[in-house]
Every structure is written in structure tokens, then in C-alpha cells.
């Protein structure tokens, strides 16, 4: 009896062996793990790894496990291209996720055309990414235009009469200030001065003095959280009275409260995930579980508004692989058009954008506005 039992175990192992021996499906991830955007890139990578674990724990996809190959693009466009090239030609990944900043994503895009490999874009918001005719782009983050549209309904409620802009001098910042200023002009709001700053700059005294002189009631700021922190502090030093609204969703209100302190009070932020009230989002059960998991790992809570992108991105890619039925770039490119994924941001599926015949895929994500009040994030 005992021996027969052993035999049956051995037999089971023998049958299971081919499945176990199957290689995992590789997914390439390129994120800024060092350099100017290091903090955000690492959060996205953490969210992506949580997705990898969750997916593998529930059996993987197509009977195989998935394996993320994460490369550091060093916040640098040249390096970003090198990581994409390495992931595609050396690691032979059939699909990529990246590359956080619009400038980095735009740098990689020609390589996708060259190798015909799809890339899921999880963060970048420059309009150019989905309108330049690259059929390998699948973007789940909102474009600046979508953000501006979502905000249009709130202009009256805020009572904005005259707006000024301060944006980081790259595809992300310039795109956003253009879209928002157009939207506001359409609503009869006067647009004052549009100021820009180097993405690495830390002193904005000159820009803020000019904005103060312009005298708008609202200042729209588009950049990443590091610069937003400094802008909030320096605006207070220069006694800027205007209400500050940040766009782009890389504004981590928790980090602002922690680092800008009192200066963060009274500021408004456009975000794509509200971890402070996960029950308010569309797929509340998924969001709640993600927030609990993130906290259980002792990850920085300030990173939740970035980390969810990694989770949603990897889940969307894996759903694409499942629909495709095989891990090949061409099949995944076609399959991604058909996916419907319940994500933390909401339901993810793609619509066409860009020139006919070579459209890029764009998701229509949820956009929320929150306010920082007395060191707490509150619903607006």
C-alpha cells in the first residue's frame, strides 16, 4: 500500500514535470530606478512586482509563470532606449511596460516600431505618445487632454477667473500647460503667464516672483512630486496668494504633507487613484486589497499613487497574453485591443487614438481631485 502510494506520487511528478520545466513568460519593464525620477520609478516597480507575485500565486497565465525583467533607465532617454533594446533582443521579452516619464517613453517608441513589440505605457501623459501613429503603444494613464477635460467641469465650482502656469520644461509639462490653458480659455478664463523650469531645478524664486506679479487666482503646476514640494514651500516664502492645483498624478499628496508640511495645506491635486478612500473608486475591493498589501510590506504610503500603475499595467499585459493564447509580440499586440481588466484605477480597455491605419491604444482612466487640509488628504 505504501509503495503503491509512492508510485502514484512519482507518476504524478512525472506528468507534472513538463509543466514545471516550462520556462516562465518574461515581461520587460523599464523604469527610472535611479536619477531624477528614481522615487516614482521604484514605486511603479514595487507595484509591478506585487502583481507578478499575485498572478503567479494564482497559477500564472497559459499554465506558465510570469517573470518580470526590470531594467533601470536611469531617468535618461538614451539609457531608456538601451534598456528597451536589451530587453527585446537579449531577454527576448514579447511585451514591455514603461517608461514612466513622457520623454523616456517617446525615446523608446521608434524601437517598438523597429522590433514590432508592444509596450504598455503606465504613467506618461504627453498627448504625442498616442497621436504620433505608433500602433505598438497601449497607454493606461490619462493624457493631459483627458485630465484637462475631466477638470473642465470643476472650473466654475472653483470660481477660477485668471490662471497662471508653472510647468517642467519637457514633453510632460509643456503638453499639460498647453492642454489646460486651452481648456480654460474655452471656458472664458483669462490665462496669465506660463512659466517653465528645468526638470532638475530646485530654485523657482524667479518664476514665482513673475507669477505673483501676474496676479492670477489659481496656479496650475505640472511636474513630479520633488519639485512640487519645493514649489509649495517657496510659494509660501514669497507670499503667493494664488490657489495651487497640481496636474499629472505624480504629485503624491502624502509625500507633500510629510515634506512640505504646513506649506502643503490648501493645495489641490489631480490624482488617478485615491488610496485615502479606496472605497470611493470603481473597483473598491481590488483597491482595498492593494492598499492593505502595500502597507503590509511596509512600503512608503506616499508611493501608493505611483505603485498602483505597476499593478494595473502588469495585470493588463497578462490579460493580453491570456487572450492571445501565446507569448508572442504580434499576438499580444492584437489581443491587447480586446482586453477588459478590472484595475485599481477603474475598468481598463482601449480606444483608438492617432492617425487612421496606425492608431495607438488609449485607456480612458478615472481622474480625481483631492485637497490637502490640515495635513490630511480630503475629498474635494
Amino acid at each position: 500500500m505504501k509503495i503503491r502510494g509512492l508510485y502514484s506520487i512519482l507518476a504524478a511528478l512525472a506528468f507534472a514535470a513538463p509543466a514545471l520545466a516550462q520556462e516562465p513568460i518574461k515581461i520587460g519593464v523599464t523604469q527610472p530606478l535611479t536619477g531624477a525620477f528614481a522615487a516614482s520609478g521604484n514605486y511603479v516597480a514595487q507595484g509591478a512586482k506585487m502583481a507578478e507575485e499575485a498572478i503567479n500565486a494564482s497559477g500564472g497565465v497559459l499554465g506558465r509563470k510570469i517573470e518580470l525583467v526590470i531594467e533601470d533607465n536611469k531617468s535618461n532617454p538614451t539609457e531608456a532606449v538601451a534598456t528597451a533594446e536589451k530587453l527585446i533582443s537579449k531577454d527576448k521579452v514579447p511585451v514591455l511596460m514603461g517608461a514612466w516619464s513622457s520623454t523616456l517613453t517617446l525615446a523608446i517608441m521608434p524601437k517598438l516600431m523597429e522590433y514590432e513589440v508592444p509596450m504598455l505605457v503606465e504613467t506618461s501623459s504627453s498627448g504625442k505618445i498616442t497621436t504620433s501613429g505608433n500602433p505598438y503603444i497601449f497607454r493606461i494613464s490619462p493624457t493631459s487632454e483627458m485630465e484637462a477635460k475631466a477638470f473642465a467641469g470643476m472650473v466654475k465650482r472653483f470660481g477660477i477667473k485668471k490662471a497662471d502656469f508653472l510647468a517642467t520644461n519637457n514633453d510632460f509639462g509643456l503638453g499639460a500647460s498647453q492642454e489646460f490653458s486651452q481648456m480654460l480659455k474655452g471656458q472664458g478664463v483669462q490665462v496669465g503667464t506660463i512659466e517653465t523650469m528645468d526638470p532638475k531645478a530646485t530654485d523657482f524664486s524667479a518664476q514665482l516672483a513673475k507669477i505673483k506679479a501676474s496676479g492670477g487666482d489659481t496656479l496650475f503646476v505640472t511636474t513630479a512630486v520633488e519639485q512640487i514640494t519645493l514649489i509649495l514651500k517657496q510659494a509660501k516664502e514669497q507670499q503667493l496668494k494664488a490657489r495651487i492645483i497640481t496636474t499629472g498624478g505624480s504629485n503624491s499628496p502624502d509625500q507633500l504633507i510629510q515634506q512640505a508640511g504646513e506649506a502643503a495645506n490648501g493645495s489641490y491635486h489631480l490624482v488617478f487613484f485615491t488610496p485615502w478612500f479606496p472605497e470611493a473608486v470603481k473597483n473598491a475591493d481590488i483597491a482595498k486589497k492593494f492598499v492593505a498589501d502595500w502597507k503590509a510590506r511596509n512600503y512608503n504610503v506616499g508611493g501608493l499613487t505611483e505603485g498602483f500603475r505597476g499593478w494595473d499595467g502588469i495585470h493588463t499585459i497578462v490579460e493580453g497574453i491570456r487572450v492571445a493564447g501565446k507569448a508572442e509580440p504580434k499576438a499580444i499586440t492584437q489581443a491587447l485591443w480586446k482586453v477588459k481588466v478590472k484595475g485599481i484605477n477603474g475598468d481598463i480597455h482601449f480606444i483608438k487614438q492617432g492617425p487612421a491605419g496606425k492608431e495607438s491604444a488609449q485607456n480612458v482612466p478615472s481622474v480625481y481631485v483631492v485637497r490637502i487640509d490640515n495635513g490630511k488628504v480630503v475629498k474635494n
Partner: protein
Amino acid sequence: MDQFLQHCLNAVMLGGTYALLGIGLTLIFGIMKVVNFTHGELYAFGAYMMYMLVMRTGMDFFAALVLAIVLGVILGALLELVLLRKLRGADIDTTMLVMIGAWIALQNTEQLAWTGVAVSINNPFPAAPLVIGPVSVAWNRVFVFFTAIVLIFATYALINHTKLGRAMRATFQDSDTAALMGVRIGNVNTATFAIGSGLAAAAGALLGPVFVAYPSMGDLAAEKAFAIVILGGLGSIPGATIGGFILAFVEELGAGYISSGYRDAMGFLLIIVILLFRPTGLFARKERIG
């Protein structure tokens, strides 16, 4: 008019720290002929030391500032002893490559030690700004400005009125002759690199609490420092001081009245113009050759 006054006030505050960054670098280049790519990392090191001392161990702000500068001096001395001493007399290319390597290694170490997330450092100054008529400035920045001025004058006095300073000046003029006259060039080099590094760390320790500290913060600081040194003339302390203020004014007023998008380009445009007319910079003495 109010805007113009605010720009000028901002420029004066900024100029003090630019000057501090510049003189550290110009000392090292002028005396050692080393293109110091680690200058920006010493700046970041100063800021992170403030973070460790003030935020982690709860040390008094002013005591932490002094200690951060001392630690910067020690790190500078170590870098000179370990990396540069053996390279004395080596090709400028070799030294440059070693310094670039040290820069990358230091920056990655900072990232490893403190992650990429920016950290803020509390300061004991009142949060409400100092208001003078139509313009205002943070108390913290006022403190930074006056400390920077004190450090600049202290360095100037050290170079011009001490025995070490005389040895440094002699080495700057002609290191071989200075060596023949009994100046210990090795020690002068170590002292120079340590003082220059200490000044960079001081700038970082002063500005860390004004801004935030993050691993790549030194890159932009180093860029500005190089610009200031070239503007003022290699090896000239008054040149670097005045160069720092000129750069601050050009940036502030350029951003205010021409275009903020070109704020960081303004300084470099100015350098091109000045170098066209004065190829050695504004204040550099001609080097003795032969």
C-alpha cells in the same frame, strides 16, 4: 517695480550660495589642476549629513551644520589621499576619468544608503517669511546668505594671511619651484582638496534644509559651480565670488524678463560672451608657463 525688487533680493540670496560652491571648486582646480567631478557629490553629502544628524539623531541644527562641514573636510581629505595622491603628475585625462568614476560611485552610494526618495530637513527658523515692504524672503535663506558670506571671507583670509595659504599660493604659481623652496606639495594638495570639499559640503548642508536632499542633487550644483569658475577665471577666489553673484543675477533677471525656460541656459550664454572677450575669465591672472 515690486517684481524687480523681489528678483534682486532673490538673486542676492542665491548668489551667496553660488559663490560658496564656486570658490571650493576654483581652489581645487587652481592649485591642484584637478577637474573635480566629485564637487556635486560633496554638496549632496553635506545635505545628507544634515539629514542624518538633525532628523535621525535629533542633534541641534547649528551643531549639526558645523559637524557636517567637518565630515565634508574629512571625506575630501580621504578622497585626495586614496585616489589623487597616487595620480600626481599623471595625465589630466587619467585624473579626470578617476574623478568621473568617483562621482558615479558616490552618487550610487547615496542612492543605496538613502534611496531615491527625497528627504526634507527641518530648520529652527520661523516659517513666516521676513517681509520688507513689497518683497519677502525666508528667514532660512537669510541665514544661509550670511553664513555663506562668512565662509567666503574666512577662506579668503586663510589663503592670504596664513602660512598654509602662502604655501597654497606658491603651489598655484609654480608647484615645482614651490617644492624646491621646501613646500610639501602633497600636504598642500590634501589640505586644498579637503578645504574645497568642505566648502561644497557647507553649501549642501546650508541648502539641504532650504530645498530637499536627494541623490542626484549634486549634478545641477556641479554644473553651476563649473560655470561660475569659468566665468570668474580658474583659481581666482574673488572671481568665483563675483562670478557667483553675476550668474545669480543673470538667471533671476533672465528668467523674470526674458524666458524662464532658458533660465539655466542664460548663465552659459553669458559665459560664451565673456570668454569671447576675456578667454581666461573675468579675473584670472595669466598662468606662468615654462
